[in-house]
């Protein structure tokens, strides 16, 4: 059964560590190694290491590289300096999301896009279809392994392994350097709400890099972390997940991603639809909620605006939040109802359990 699933270069490491494996977007990935809550807490209080090599990498090069990136995404990549990255959305004509991604500017004429694993081939095909300007386009997911080192101790432990200037590397910037002798692209990016580094390396070096990081992290309390903790961490940090909060039937404006929509940058796929929606106003909106009654909201559960009326919204991601020790969720509700503090009800297996709309992110890391 698992024979058809794709494996990262670290697959044997996960097996060696006794990880519980799941099919995630067609990849055989670790969901947890020895307890989701412990892994979640390690990232909030110390440091955790994730294999996220399933993520896709698409590279765009050449004199028209910027033009292609600008055409298919809604953020303004012309504003990126070399060595800088930003969050972005790959767009469809109707203003909905083909995917969300990070755009890294490696050189003036070289962009490195990190996309969701399950969408990689679809994204690449969509970009190829829209590449009327003949930028050089490569689907390079197999050329990179990606290790995410996340947590308040990440900078200190990584700093001891590299001469790359981490102290001056700002959030959403990246550099290149050796980590314990292994050449890496070192990005200060992540998906957990903590201080974070993502290390791109050659797949052949991934196992060695993993072992070095785990060894170096021992005094700091490092734990290998699976996709289970990755999901609860990103939810606490108020970050959207493709296939849940965002997809081909929702727009970035509905998903509260307004600050990544740069209508003034010039034309791009979906721009007209987004401009129209911005002028007319959205009808549904993504909100955060916290359960006040006894029950856990889960993906797909209905949301009610009163104790008697029909369902008015839907939970897109719901889970206990291990650090906050609350039951939290993202949901779509009618835009007029999206007021912070408003009481709502979540249908938990036929019963309406009280909840309240709250601000996101649910969790913000303490300022140093």
């Amino acid at each position: 059964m698992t024979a058809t699933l794709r494996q990262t270069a670290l697959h044997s490491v996960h097996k060696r560590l006794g990880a519980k494996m799941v099919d995630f977007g067609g990849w055989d990935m670790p969901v947890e190694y020895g307890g989701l809550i412990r892994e979640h807490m390690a990232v909030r209080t110390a440091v955790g290491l994730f294999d996220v090599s399933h993520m896709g990498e698409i590279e765009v090069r050449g004199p028209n590289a910027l033009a292609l990136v600008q055409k298919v995404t809604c953020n303004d990549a012309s504003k990126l300096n070399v060595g800088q990255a930003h969050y972005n959305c790959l767009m469809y004509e109707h203003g909905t999301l083909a995917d969300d991604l990070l755009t890294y500017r490696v050189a003036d004429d070289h962009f490195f896009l990190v996309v969701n694993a399950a969408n990689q081939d679809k994204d690449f095909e969509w970009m190829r279809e829209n590449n009327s300007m003949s930028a050089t386009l490569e689907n390079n997911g197999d050329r990179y392994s990606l290790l995410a080192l996340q947590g308040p101790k990440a900078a200190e432990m990584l700093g001891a392994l590299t001469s790359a200037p981490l102290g001056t590397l700002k959030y959403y910037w990246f550099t290149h350097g050796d980590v314990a002798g292994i050449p890496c692209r070192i990005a200060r990016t992540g998906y957990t709400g903590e201080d974070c580094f993502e290390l791109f390396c050659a797949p052949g070096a991934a196992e060695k890099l993993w072992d070095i990081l785990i060894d170096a992290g021992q005094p700091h309390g490092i734990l290998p972390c699976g996709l289970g903790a990755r999901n609860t961490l990103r939810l606490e940090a108020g970050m959207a997940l493709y296939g849940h909060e965002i997809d081909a039937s929702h727009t970035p404006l509905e998903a509260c991603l307004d600050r990544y929509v740069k209508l003034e940058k010039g034309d791009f796929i979906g721009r007209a639809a987004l401009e129209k929606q911005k002028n007319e106003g959205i009808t549904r909106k993504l909100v955060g909620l916290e359960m006040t009654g006894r029950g856990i909201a889960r993906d797909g559960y209905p949301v009610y605006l009163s104790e008697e009326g029909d369902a008015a919204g839907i939970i897109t991601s719901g889970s206990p939040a291990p650090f906050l020790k609350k039951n939290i969720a993202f949901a779509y509700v009618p835009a007029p109802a999206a007021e912070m503090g408003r009481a709502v009800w979540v249908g938990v297996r036929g019963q309406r359990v009280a909840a309240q709309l709250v601000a996101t992110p649910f969790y913000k890391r303490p300022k140093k």
Partner: protein
Amino acid sequence: MSNKTPPNLRYTKDHEWILVDGSTGTIGITDHAQDALGDIVFVDAPKTGTPVQAGKVFGTVESVKAVSDLFSPASGEVTEVNDTLKDSPESVNEDPYGKGWLIKIKLSDKSEVDALMTADQYSAYAAQEHS
């Protein structure tokens, strides 16, 4: 595996166990079930006095990432609920056959229990399902 499957209990295909003592049945989930669920954070069990039926849902157990129905191994009426699980649901992970028990029932038909799997049968069943 067998050391994680106490021989004095009977087991269901849905991974619950029952301990019979006179006319009382104590019910919980197996080590295999708690391991598959991961960190348990919430147990929803019926109140004392509620009738339960063999093979039917009597409550739910939730881990961080999933909800799982609980199926009663036998019919009867709930006589006691493990209230300590409200504050310490992790007992189900740590001690599924002891502190992590879920409910006790007054058995209405003890012969129902004879039809359930023995420890050896369940060990083989769980190992097969796992592969």
